[in-house]
């Protein structure tokens, strides 16, 4: 394979700036196969794939572009998950590329994620060239945006293609720029094999399919490969590359190529993203740099709304884990919620995605507890535990001190909202780092924020305080010592474990008060008065009362009403059945969920 005809690249952009639309256009305007490959009847193989029902929603796609210089180029377009939760995956995808297209919205200009993503790309020594998208919008200001890119990011932008991915304007320019501005891959086909894993998926026919970028060497059917970090060894069954929506087998993958390997690997945990694939008998000298083991940063309890669905939930989580090695779960029992799982996620978005998939694809009704970050608890006996469930916090007498994760946050916002965003960050215990005006009217605010302050409703608060204009990005900075306490909620004097959480001592009162207020509205009135108390270390810091029910009676019930009134009572009874019993109090499931969103403006 002539390396000079390969281009490995990705597209980086702020959310909604048109990344996936541009990717679609690139795929449309290019071909699936080279002229030579067509003659070799690759299609027959593909037909087989189709019969077996294998289709891929790939992280990568290979297309063929006939450039103005008359040559056919292979484009490997590698998708990068567009969210901070998947920063590590993004970094590994970037490491598989040689260059990147930066898409910037002609009206919106540079945004927080634009910056974060482009810096990440530059960190990986990628050649980045910008394109200005949505130039057909009335509010488009291409020249302003070009200047902004040069000022803020510091990359050449004057000859950036002006395009509309949506309407197919300027796509040819982008394709030519890929050929001319992104370097061809380097590498030695004859060196010992080293290939970077940037993704892997589980397929019930083929087992694990490993997505790789070959840096050096050659891999083909029969090669005995070794994953350097996990140590797993297997014989290669098939190699190939990614057509649009399908796997296309080929003879070998050589240095500079992007493709897949199958080797009857049973679980994803053997093929971790970032690991290096080498030849078992002729290994490369050192693994590729940048590998790290992915650890969940946000945990929460996930329970089936109907406790009879515990096994279904377990099965669903197992299935999801087959294709998402970063999802962690272990059984957990709650007095209030029964049997469920403590699940670990890469971030809030990841949590949302998993929750939504469980509900939508597996038809499960879930009750989730408040998400928690991982605290480091330094005990007096010198040991340190990673605390993922507030209920497991040791007795205060055994705790020397605690640490919490801190993130570096970048918030980009128009001038008018700087004040209210600063106020928000302060409320969330943010530490001001810097502020710079990146252009007239727009500022980039940098704060250090405790992660546990942004996993509740920070996004919502940010949006409502900036009328949707603020954009936000963060990455983990590390752990810091902090004054943390466990806040417990007592309903009718009984502690409800599923509602306990860790909070900074200074926020405890405020959070406790809002929890009590929320719960007061959610818990239906009973025959008796129900105190709702927020406690820290056994001391009550906030209290509300659900008054005893005084009236629950149908004034009228005559001949024509009976059926309807009976149905009403039945419905009420049905609703009660779905409630969770804590002591003598029935708590609706919505109560557990409602405390996840303690809106600021209430």
């Amino acid at each position, binding site marked *: 394979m002539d390396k000079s005809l390969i281009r490995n690249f990705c597209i980086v952009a702020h959310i909604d700036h048109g990344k996936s639309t541009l990717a679609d256009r690139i795929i449309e305007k290019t071909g699936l196969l080279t002229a030579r490959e067509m003659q070799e009847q690759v299609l027959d193989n593909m037909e087989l794939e189709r019969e077996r029902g294998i289709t891929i929603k790939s992280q990568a796609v290979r297309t063929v572009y006939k450039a103005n210089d008359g040559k056919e180029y292979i484009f490997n377009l590698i998708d990068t998950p567009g969210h901070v939760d998947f920063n590590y995956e993004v970094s590994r995808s970037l490491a598989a590329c040689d260059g990147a297209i930066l898409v910037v919205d002609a009206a919106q200009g540079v945004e927080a994620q634009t910056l974060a993503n482009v810096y990440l790309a530059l960190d990986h020594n990628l050649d980045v060239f910008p394109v200005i998208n949505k130039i057909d919008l009335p509010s488009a200001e291409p020249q302003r945006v070009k200047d902004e890119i040069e000022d803020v990011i510091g990359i050449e932008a004057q000859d950036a293609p002006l395009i509309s991915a949506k309407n197919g304007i300027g796509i040819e320019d982008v394709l030519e720029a890929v050929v001319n501005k992104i370097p061809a891959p380097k590498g030695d086909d004859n060196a010992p094999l080293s290939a970077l894993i940037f993704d892997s998926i589980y397929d019930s026919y083929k087992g694990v399919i490993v997505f790789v970028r070959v840096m050096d060497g050659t891999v083909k059917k029969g090669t005995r490969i070794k994953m350097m970090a996990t140590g797993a060894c297997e014989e290669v069954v098939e190699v190939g590359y990614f057509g649009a929506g399908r796997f296309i087998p080929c003879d070998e993958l050589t240095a500079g190529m992007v493709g897949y390997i199958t080797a009857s690997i049973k679980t994803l945990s053997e093929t971790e993203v970032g690991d290096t694939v080498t030849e078992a008998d002729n290994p490369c000298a050192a693994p590729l740099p940048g590998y790290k083991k992915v650890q969940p940063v946000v945990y929460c309890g996930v329970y089936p709304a109907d406790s009879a669905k515990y096994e279904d939930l377990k099965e669903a989580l197992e299935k999801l884990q087959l294709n998402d090695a970063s999802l962690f779960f272990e059984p957990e029992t709650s007095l209030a919620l029964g049997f469920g799982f403590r699940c670990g996620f890469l971030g809030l978005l990841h949590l949302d995605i998993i929750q939504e998939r469980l509900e939508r694809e597996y038809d499960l009704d879930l009750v989730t507890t408040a998400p928690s970050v991982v605290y480091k608890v330094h005990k007096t006996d010198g040991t340190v535990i990673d605390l993922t469930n507030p209920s497991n916090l040791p007795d205060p007498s055994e705790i020397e001190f605690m640490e919490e994760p801190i993130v570096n946050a970048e918030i980009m916002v128009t001038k008018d909202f700087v004040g209210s965003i600063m106020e928000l960050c302060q409320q969330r215990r943010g530490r001001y780092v810097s502020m710079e005006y990146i252009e007239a009217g727009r500022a980039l605010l940098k704060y250090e924020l405790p992660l546990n302050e942004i996993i509740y409703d920070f996004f919502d608060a940010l949006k409502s305080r900036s009328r949707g204009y603020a954009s936000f990005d963060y990455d983990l900075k590390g752990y810091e010592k902090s004054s943390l306490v466990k806040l417990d909620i007592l309903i009718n004097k009984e502690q409800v474990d599923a509602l306990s959480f860790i909070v900074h001592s200074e926020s405890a009162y405020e959070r406790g008060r809002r929890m009590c207020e929320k719960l007061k509205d959610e818990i239906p009135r009973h*025959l008796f008065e129900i105190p709702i108390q927020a406690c820290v270390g056994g001391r009550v810091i906030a209290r509300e009362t659900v008054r005893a029910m*005084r009236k*629950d*009676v149908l*004034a009228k019930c*005559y001949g*024509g009403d*009976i059926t309807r009134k009976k149905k009403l009572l*039945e419905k009420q009874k049905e609703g009660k059945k779905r409630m969770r019993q804590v002591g003598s109090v029935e708590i609706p499931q919505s109560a557990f969920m409602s405390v996840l969103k303690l809106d600021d403006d209430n």
Partner: protein
Amino acid sequence: MMTTDLTKSELYIHIPFCVKKCLYCDFLSFPADEKTKERYIEALCDELMYIGCERAENPLRSVFIGGGTPSVLSAEHIVRVMDTVKERFTLEEDAEITIECNPGTLEEEKLKAYKECGINRLSLGLQSSHEKELKTLGRIHTYEDFVSCIRMAENADFDNINVDLMSGLPGQTASSFEETLRKVCTLSDCIKHISAYSLIVEEETPFGQMYEDGQLNLPDEDEDREMYHMTTRILSEYGFERYEISNYARPGFECRHNIGYWTGVDYYAAGLDAASFYGHCRYSNTPDMEEYLKDPISAPSLIEKLDQSGLMSEYMILGLRLTSGVSVSGFEKRFKTGIFDVYGKEIDRFIQDGLLDHAGDNIKLSEKGLDLANFVMRAFI
């Protein structure tokens, strides 16, 4: 518990017309032109004839002409309906025959005709003696209209009159309600029965919408309960005793027809959307006027067929509406099994919670239980 003879039946006749819909009303009722009314009466009489010949096996212990506002019809229409009933059904000698009336629609003539055709009980919808409250409800009459109706009814020899009142109205206070109660109680000896409802805001009504929009200035729960408890106390001063959650009567004047609903008596029903219950089945006529006019005797749709447990459940939830409650021996006689064998756990729990009382042969809602009746009834569903 009032003794009920299940070999007797009742008849309900629905008149879905009114002058103007009240803002809280969720009954099937609407204004209509004369022609529609005429066609309706024709269809209704056809249906009554059919029921009388084909279905009704037992003599009727009561007839209730309800609505809507039956009194918007001409006297002649009502007479025709009653003539059909008398012709096709066996009426017990002392059958209770009620017609619902709206004070804005009565005149001496009509009342005389009612009396002559056998109607012996009037049910008058007053709701409040305060003009402002009447206006809030969207009623078409004044308190003066009501007083003159009562005088006309006295003149027409009606001596068994019910008056409907409402508490918990927007803007109402305990003292304004007390005034209403006392005025009605002292107005006439012919008033033998008072239904006093705590307002239910139904979703699909203008009140429902206003409630959602926060425009309904309702008394809070404490005030509402104060009014309810006051009702019992004040009415009792004048000799009206509570016998059901919302119903009060001078001794011997409890509404026989309604007691039938609460004690499992069979009832036939004629008219648009009318619900009937016989042979352990509940049926409903079509709510579609055109459909009804076209074919008033087509079989009503079966709404539910009650099995033994369904019948027992209704025995409890309907019977407990009565202040006398349900009869332990009556339950056993009817279902051939003991009430405690079926509901012992629930009954004991509620007695312990102070919501039910067990006195002699009867199990009934306590004073507190009457306020929380749904809470108790849900356990028997």
